[in-house]
């Protein structure tokens, strides 16, 4: 039973990541490979503040979101001049720099050793320790992220994002300050990813840089695209499918390192197949990157 709940908690954490990435990739049309970096930024900020200073969980989460939103300004800067695949490459660069910082800034992040012993969250006297408690918390996070993105994208703000996706020059011609919209969307997306990061850090109670590499970014992108970018349910479907399906590999009884590789191959193959034969994803309406 704990195993099942554990899977559901992971689904919720990844749902926060996919929903927030979809705000950029699906709704605004700017694919970012730096999402795992913001996820990691939230995890590290929160873990460090809580373990070093002894601040409560809520402060850790808040600090993580603020730091990630602030750093996201640096990432949204290149979107001033870059389009499409050039922008993707720029975000790739940011991802690599941040992982390099997680790995090498030894006296803060402890590098590859990671940060152990991150305390489980206590929110206003509610000590969250059992898997079921975590599921409730993770569900609240996922619902919050979904609510924020849903409200944003069905508002006038969201219509401008869609206009940017369809034709940025046209949106500018209508007098929209597209840069401002892009920067805001980036900050929101990064802040939500950081929330997922803090939750992950306090759930697993140990973090190291391997959880936040470019492969993790690719995984989240695959989830968004396989589920269906820019749609209401797509990112959630993607998170559910790609977290649960590979778990089946666990019961085949392969050695763990082979299973990890097979899982990655599975993600890659699904991504290729979907892009080639059904670019709008399982539950989407908008074909990605026409």
């Amino acid at each position, binding site marked *: 039973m704990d195993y099942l709940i554990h899977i559901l908690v992971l689904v919720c954490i990844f749902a926060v990541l996919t929903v927030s990435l979809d705000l950029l990739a699906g709704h605004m049309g700017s*694919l970012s490979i730096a999402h795992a970096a913001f996820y990691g930024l939230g995890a590290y900020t929160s873990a460090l503040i809580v373990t070093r200073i002894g601040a409560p969980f809520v402060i850790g989460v808040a600090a993580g979101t603020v730091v990630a939103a602030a750093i996201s300004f640096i990432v949204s*800067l*290149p979107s*001033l*001049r*870059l*389009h*499409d*695949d*050039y922008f*993707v*490459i*720029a975000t*790739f*660069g*940011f991802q*690599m*720099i941040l992982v*390099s*910082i997680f*790995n*090498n800034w030894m006296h803060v992040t402890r590098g590859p050793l990671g940060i152990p012993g991150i305390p489980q969250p206590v929110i206003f006297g509610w000590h969250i320790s059992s898997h079921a408690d975590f599921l409730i918390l993770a569900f609240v996070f996922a619902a919050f992220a979904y609510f924020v993105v849903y409200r944003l994208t069905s508002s006038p703000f969201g219509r401008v994002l869609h206009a940017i996706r369809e034709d*940025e*020059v*046209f949106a500018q011609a209508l007098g929209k300050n597209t840069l401002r919209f892009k920067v805001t969307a980036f900050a929101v997306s990064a802040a939500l990813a950081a929330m997922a990061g803090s939750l992950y850090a306090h759930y697993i109670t140990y973090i190291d840089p391997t959880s936040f590499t470019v*492969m993790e970014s*690719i995984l989240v*992108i*695959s989830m968004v*695209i396989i589920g269906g970018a820019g749609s209401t349910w797509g990112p959630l479907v993607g998170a559910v499918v790609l977290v649960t399906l590979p778990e089946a590999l666990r019961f085949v009884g392969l050695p763990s*390192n*082979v299973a990890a*590789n*097979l899982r*990655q*191959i599975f*993600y*890659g*193959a*699904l*991504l*290729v197949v979907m*892009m*080639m034969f059904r*670019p709008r994803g399982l539950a989407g309406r908008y074909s*990605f*990157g*026409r």
Partner: protein
Amino acid sequence: MQFVVNGLVTGAAYALVALSFSVVFRVGRFFNFTHAAVFTWAGYFGYLCWTILGLSLWAGALLSVCLSAVLGVLLELSVYMPLHRRRASGVVLLLVSLGLYTIMQNTISMLFGDEIKRLSGNTVAEGLSVWGARATRIQLAIVIICVVVFVAFGILLRLSPFGTRLRAVADDPDLAAIQGVQVHRFRLAASALGSGLAAVVSLLMGLDVGITPTVGLNALMMGVVAVIAGGVDSTPGIFLGGILLGLAQHLGVWKIGTQWQDAIAFAVLILFLVLRPQGFFGKPLRKAAV
């Protein structure tokens, strides 16, 4: 002095990777991550030929280069051609290549394991003395081959019909097709050339420092940085971009430590993308289509 020699050797290798990537990039016009996978596979083909089959240095090298070229052509035929025919955008192609890269890298991990493999069986040879610094035979070979390949490629590009067609397809595939260039067949030729060239560098770097399943991605990213710094369409620019990147990394190491090499390279990438995306010799990038 040792830093300058090391920087030149690394720079020469980067310049070659960048050249091989630029051949593929010019005709495909997207960031092809499978080029990194071909690079990795080439190293493991070398491992297979030399260490397991026990072929001689030249025979093994020739066979690995041919196998890699075939791999590149197969990828182009089976995946990219149908997508090009459907006029898929750069982002779609990038995502497909990312998925394929994941599959190919994990296949290597599964077959050979993640640990570093040495390609040269014999013991470490005494280095030669160059300007009061030490360099191995392989490192000298890298520099010499780099200069020869660049001169040969420059001549090929300017003076042969192949070069003229390459530039024509890079400029505008449709116009090239109207003029009677068989664009599809030409793409195959270019991917064979690019993959073969990548295999040469992969084997040289493998002989120098050994191979792991992720060498290709690291090498490709450095190649991309060099290409963007130098300007995609400028052969001398790519050469200079590679050499300067190598020097910057090694002089950076001298000041702040080895672990930040990657961070330096990606910082260079982002600076160029933000400030001068066409590189120092390139023509201005295409403007956003209206």
